């Protein structure tokens, strides 16, 4: 689905050649939607989209999922959620155009956005659970928006291993079937005894392997015979929803296994990280950068003692490396450029700052070899992505710095002696230094960093540091508040 073809897997190739009719993306989409208004998203998408589409489509879908999530968090009933979310779907994620071309666009957007978000949200159990829950609700809402005929059409398109039972079989099993569903006719459909009988007379039953309906087992609301479940038609939606969510859950898990191999794609990964953090389903952090503190950050001030003192140790360490070597290696440059961008250093100021610091490098060489990278980080070259500053997890996931390298997290990468010296230089008292060394020794690097932030703000900020820019923002806020008080 990405522009590069090199990372198609063998499995993917097999799959592509197996669908002869899908030589074009539109034919492909027609195939996965199979004349129906909905899909289970079982096959990966093919065809190309632009990075721009990649991002905006994903964001449109996230907004809908976020709305579902926040409705659920406010304990809204399914009906209420439906009434709030259905108009949003119609606006940004419809699937019902009668114009073929338009319908293809709608399908494309729906299909891709689903798969992009799968990538974003497959990375932790927590994200997977949320995504699964919200996508399943989205599916349910969409299904309920369909007409009866469209629903039937969709069910047929799934080719699930189910059959409607014959009248004879129903006759034969009549007592058992009725006794199995009688209770749920009461509490799901609110029928009294006479109505139950009537309802049962006209109800159709679906036969399906019991594994598909295990969540109907605990209430014993279906009849089982030799591994086959007999499900009344009124439970059909439940059945579809189960199937949808079971398939998606399995797919998310296999996606999460595939994830490390995407790591080298420097165009995709930042977007994914951005989507799943900045726009994450739990709004954990907003994006950093261009914040209200930024106005006084420029090429001159960025290296001042006042500002550097507010950097987390990784930032201070990189600055130290830059000042001693007048140069930084690739990874540190990336990490530090983005961090500085995050604290509000504009591109122009960044270019001035970096070229000024690279004292041993001629302007000519700088322009040739380094300028591009900095502009790239600011999204002005290559994929034109507005890269986000790395969070601690990303920093900690990169290869550790070798001798002479200044990226990474000092709480992990420095020897105890150097770390202790750095901490003392930061003005920490001996007992704090020892405590922070201990925490780092245990491998709780971000905890060590959070503790430093706490000490540096005299206990005012007790936040978990998950991002160097978070550390900086909190330090700045604290410093400013102290200044206004004084």
């Amino acid at each position: 689905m990405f522009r590069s073809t090199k990372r198609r897997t063998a499995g993917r190739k097999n799959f592509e050649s197996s669908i002869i009719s899908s030589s074009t993306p539109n034919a492909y989409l027609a195939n996965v939607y199979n004349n129906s208004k909905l899909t289970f998203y079982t096959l990966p998408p093919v065809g190309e989209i632009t990075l721009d589409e990649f991002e905006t489509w994903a964001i449109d879908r996230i907004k809908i999922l976020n709305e579902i999530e926040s409705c659920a968090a406010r304990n809204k009933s399914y009906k209420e959620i439906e009434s709030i979310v259905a108009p949003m779907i119609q606006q940004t994620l419809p699937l019902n155009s009668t114009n073929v071309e338009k319908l293809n666009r709608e399908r494309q957007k729906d299909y891709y956005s689903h798969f992009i978000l799968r990538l974003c949200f497959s990375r932790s159990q927590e994200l997977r659970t949320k995504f699964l829950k919200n996508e399943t609700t989205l599916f349910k809402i969409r299904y309920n928006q369909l007409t009866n005929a469209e629903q039937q059409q969709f069910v047929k398109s799934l080719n699930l291993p189910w059959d409607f039972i014959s009248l004879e079989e129903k006759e034969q099993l009549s007592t058992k079937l009725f006794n199995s569903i009688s209770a749920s006719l009461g509490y799901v459909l609110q029928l009294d005894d006479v109505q139950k009988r009537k309802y049962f007379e006209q109800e159709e039953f679906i036969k399906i392997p019991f594994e598909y309906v295990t969540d109907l087992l605990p209430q014993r609301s279906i009849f089982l015979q030799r591994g086959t479940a007999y499900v009344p038609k009124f439970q059909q939606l439940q059945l579809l929803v189960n199937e949808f969510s079971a398939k998606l859950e399995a797919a998310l898990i296999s996606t999460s296994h595939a994830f490390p191999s995407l790591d080298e794609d420097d165009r995709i990964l930042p977007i994914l990280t951005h989507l799943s953090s900045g726009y994450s389903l739990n709004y954990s952090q907003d994006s950093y950068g261009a914040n209200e503190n930024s106005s006084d950050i420029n090429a001159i001030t960025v290296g001042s003692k006042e500002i550097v003192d507010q950097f987390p140790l990784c930032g201070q360490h990189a600055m130290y490396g830059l000042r001693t070597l007048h140069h930084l290696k690739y990874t540190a440059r990336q990490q530090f450029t983005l961090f500085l961008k995050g604290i509000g250093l504009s591109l122009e100021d960044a270019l001035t700052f970096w070229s000024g610091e690279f004292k041993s490098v001629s302007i000519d060489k700088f322009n040739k070899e380094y300028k591009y990278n900095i502009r790239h980080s600011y999204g002005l070259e290559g994929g034109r992505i507005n890269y986000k500053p790395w969070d601690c997890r990303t920093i900690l996931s990169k290869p550790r710095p070798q001798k002479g390298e200044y990226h990474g997290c000092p709480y992990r990468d420095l020897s105890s002696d150097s770390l202790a010296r750095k901490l003392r230089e930061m003005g920490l008292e001996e007992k704090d230094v020892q405590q922070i060394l201990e925490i780092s020794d245990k491998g709780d690097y971000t905890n060590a960093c959070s503790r430093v932030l706490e000490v540096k703000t005299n206990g005012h900020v007790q936040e978990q540091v998950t991002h160097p820019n978070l550390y900086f923002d909190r330090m700045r806020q604290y410093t400013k508040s102290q200044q206004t008080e004084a």
Partner: protein
Amino acid sequence: MPTIASEMTTDNLESSSMASSPVNPNVSSRNRPPSSPLKQIPSDSLGPASDSLDSSNKKISADDMAFYYERLLPFRYVFQWLNHSPKPQKDFTMREFAYEHRSGAYQRYNSFESPEDFKSSVVRVNPTRFEVGAVYAVNPSERKTLPKSAMKPLEKELVFDIDLTDYDEIRTCCSKTQICTKCWKFITAATKVLDVALREDFGFEHMIWVFSGRRGAHCWVSDKRARSLDESKRRAIVEYLDILKNKGTKRLNLRRPLHPHIQRSLDILKPDFLTIIQEQDPWRDDEVAIQDLLSKIPNSSITDALKKEWTTKPHRSSLDKFQDISSMAQRLPKANDKKMVIEAEEDIILEVVYPRLDVEVSRQMIHLLKSPFCIHPGTGNVCVPFDANKEFNPMTSPNLRQIQGELLKYDEEHRGDDKKVANWDKTSLKPYTDLFTAFVKRLLASEVTGKRERDEQEPDLEF
């Protein structure tokens, strides 16, 4: 015996006294030790063997166990049962086994390459017992070099565990670790009900029931379909079967009409119930129990009358009392009142004799369970397989001392014979190994046909 210390490291050796349970204690409603793979050694297995099941007063020694492992335990059949094929495959080689050592230490994550390796390792280590766990994607013994996520269980038999301790509030004949043929009837009733439900409702065919050696039974379901169930599906199945789940001290209060599974269970259990309350006689003189019984009858005219009647006739038996309720119900003028009392009686029957299940044992894929044909360390009884639909008497089932003697005696009497007879066939283990081999044979046959079908479906390759 060679020392085992060399192959034990602190990492995979958990001392029973430090073992902690990862199981949520809220889930298990009944008071038995949490069913954790790191469970503590039940105290009864360490104390002096003193109950009625013991055929000897002496503790089972390490030599006895070594003798048994070397000469009597049918390793090959246990191997085939877990391997689903005569040649070693992943179902066996990637499977976890745990040892319970004589010291009480519990050692997880052992695995074996072949039936020979299996036997020689058990013989060498000479544990008090060994337990069977799940099949993993990687070799469990290599787990230290692998990330945690690699140790996800792929498959395991679906298991059930029924234990008489869960019936303590109703059984009067014995207490604690003791059992007799009377209270074993609870287990017999439970196995009948479960066995039929697993077959008729879920379509499973390859179940083996195993005496736990003291006061309970395990059921192992080996159908491919059961082995590949994930934990949420396992939980759903147990919950379907566990009709007593929400039962507190109040009446069960099942909705009518009864679900076919419950109706069938009731039909099976009715006769057993009558025998059991006749023998256990829980409502004879125990005022609290009698009160409790009456509180479940939703008709004050009946309960008032019965209270009076039973005071004038003290020591009236439980069976009589139960029948008093039925006959009074028959005489009620309104059909609906009658129906309600009869339904209450049905609920009581199920409350007393319906199987009491341990949900966690069945749900958890990583849970380990003692292998069939192990020796119960406290009683010396062999954990023999039995047929759920035939009489099984735990009081006369084979005991290590007894079969040791039988084997020695046979060899003595047949000295010089050329005929090759398997050792277990020389002892009273024979009918049980026969039952087990027949079961394993059927299982292996079904695997061959099943495999052909499964191979035709290629697994999905996901995005």
